[in-house]
């Protein structure tokens, strides 16, 4: 084999392998760029008023997004109440009871539901909840987010239940426990850390969703008037403020972006922490 040919192959090897490294570090850099920009721009505009005051009318500077923060939390509560139980139970079915064909179909449909664009889920919630009563409501927003929570919860619950060794199930059953008792008192507690993580991640994901809220929860510049009325949320506020022509609103959009991103990233980190701890025990 000729010397230049080997040199060439080694050069290609080195160049391409370096490029893959550059690509990976480049992608990671994007995360830090995003964080840096938000901390830089949002940090300037974040103050106590942001958390305690209502938005000011157009033209007046100052004010905050207290109603949007509470609104987001309310929507998340609705989503959790509606989505998490269904997701958990369906996950238990897939891991513990399911047969072959039906489980395959459920899993497949769950994945497809997970892939449905969030804006289409918004249309669905609109047709389901808003159209019959003819006005936007917090409830409709909660339904949209709740539907999005289901598939993520199902798959993580199933995965972590499957991680529980069969010997534990057999031991419980050998002691005379029924199947359900085994699941409720042995299998679920053993997988609880992972299942909780999955739920937290599901909520963190829908916390940042904007598209399904635009025409379900809509938005509100004041405190919400109950579950049947439009309600403000952080992501929708960021969107409205970012595309507005006012500098003061842009400033607040950055602040809200920083709060939202911190919320989402911290829940992700928290979820990892729970998982790591529950594995260590």
């Amino acid at each position, binding site marked *: 084999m000729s010397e230049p040919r080997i040199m060439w192959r080694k050069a290609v090897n080195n160049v391409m392998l370096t490029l893959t490294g550059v690509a990976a570090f480049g992608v*990671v850099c994007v*995360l830090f760029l*995003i964080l840096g920009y938000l901390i830089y721009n949002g940090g300037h505009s974040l103050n106590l008023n942001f958390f305690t005051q209502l938005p000011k009318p157009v033209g007046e500077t100052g004010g905050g997004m207290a109603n949007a923060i509470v609104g987001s939390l309310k929507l998340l509560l609705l989503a959790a109440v509606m989505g998490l139980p269904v997701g958990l139970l369906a996950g238990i079915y897939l891991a513990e009871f399911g047969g072959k064909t039906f489980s395959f179909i459920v899993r497949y449909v769950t994945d497809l539901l997970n892939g449905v664009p969030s804006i*289409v889920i918004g249309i669905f919630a609109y047709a*389901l909840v808003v159209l019959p009563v003819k006005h936007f409501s917090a409830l409709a927003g909660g339904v949209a987010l709740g539907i999005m929570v289901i598939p993520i919860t199902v798959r993580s619950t199933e995965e972590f239940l499957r991680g529980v060794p069969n010997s534990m199930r057999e031991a419980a059953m050998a002691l005379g426990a029924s199947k359900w008792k085994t699941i409720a008192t042995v299998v679920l507690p053993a997988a609880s850390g992972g299942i909780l993580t999955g739920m937290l991640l599901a909520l963190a994901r829908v916390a940042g969703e904007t598209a399904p809220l635009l025409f379900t929860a809509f938005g509100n510049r004041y405190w919400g008037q109950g579950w049947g009325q439009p309600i403000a949320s952080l*992501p929708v506020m960021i969107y409205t403020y970012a595309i507005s022509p006012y500098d003061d609103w842009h400033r607040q959009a950055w602040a809200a972006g920083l709060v939202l991103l911190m919320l989402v990233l911290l829940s992700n980190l928290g979820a990892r922490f729970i998982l790591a701890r529950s594995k260590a025990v």
Partner: protein
Amino acid sequence: MSAASTTITHEVPPKSGLRAFVDRLKGGDEIAHLITLIAAAGIILITSLLVLELWRTSYLSRSKFGWMFFWTKVWDANFDNFGAATFIYGTLVTSAVALAIAVPLGLASAIFLSELAPRRLSDIISFLIDLLAAVPSVIYGLLGIFIVVPLMRTTLGPALKHVLGFTPLFSGPNYGVGFLTAGIVLAIMVVPFIISVSREVLLSVPREQREAALAMGATRWESTWQVVVPWARTGIMGSVFLALARALGETMAVTMVIGNNPQISASLFAPGYTIASVIANEFTEATGDLYLSALIELGLVLFLMTFILNGLARLLIVATERGGGRPA
């Protein structure tokens, strides 16, 4: 087993209806089975209901425009004339730009993470990339508006025009907002999905495959590119389909940087409009049943596109994992 549970209920005399119910539930496999089965069936029910509602509420538009809906470029609320062509074009072009950037970048990163990086480093980077996937899309839009758009207007756009301006793709006025900007933002958003799925697939390639190639005198890169990647290509295709499905349906970030102008233009600098962003912008303002119905039909189109892609992607990924991808 059921005998054991009956003894338990007999030993504890039912104090109240609720207590008895709880006991029965604790002992009753059938009830538990049924409840979880209902939840699982509920998911299928919700998904079917979703399709049904989209189909039902888009009836007006479907019956009036028929198949012409896909070919008509006009979108005029005043004269009740609606066509999806410009939006479908915008959706496809932005997604194509996104994939053109994200696939090489994602595949290269996945190769680095699975083949080169030590396991600890690989895990840390994968974790950071998972965090990137968790960033809400409205935040990408925020950065898009205030960082990427100005960058495109002042630096990146003129530079591209200078180098590639002779092609129709990179000619015409550059406003900062447009197909290319939307594509770049989308690329950053879908790259984490390509990386994490491809990494898993590449890691599942048997070690013997690499060792055999290296033993034959291949360099590290040759063994990766000619042996490992082809072995995993179905799964990698699956990850690309998943990313494409996400890019097609992505709403907020695109709406904020694409310029929202329904037109078909060869230039990537031109402002455009996508299916998702027209729904986001006009849904609450849609006056008249036909207008709303046309928007919902757009939603139906978007749903079907992503539905088919996701279905294919899942099948491909399942196929690689079953088809000998796992080391014996």
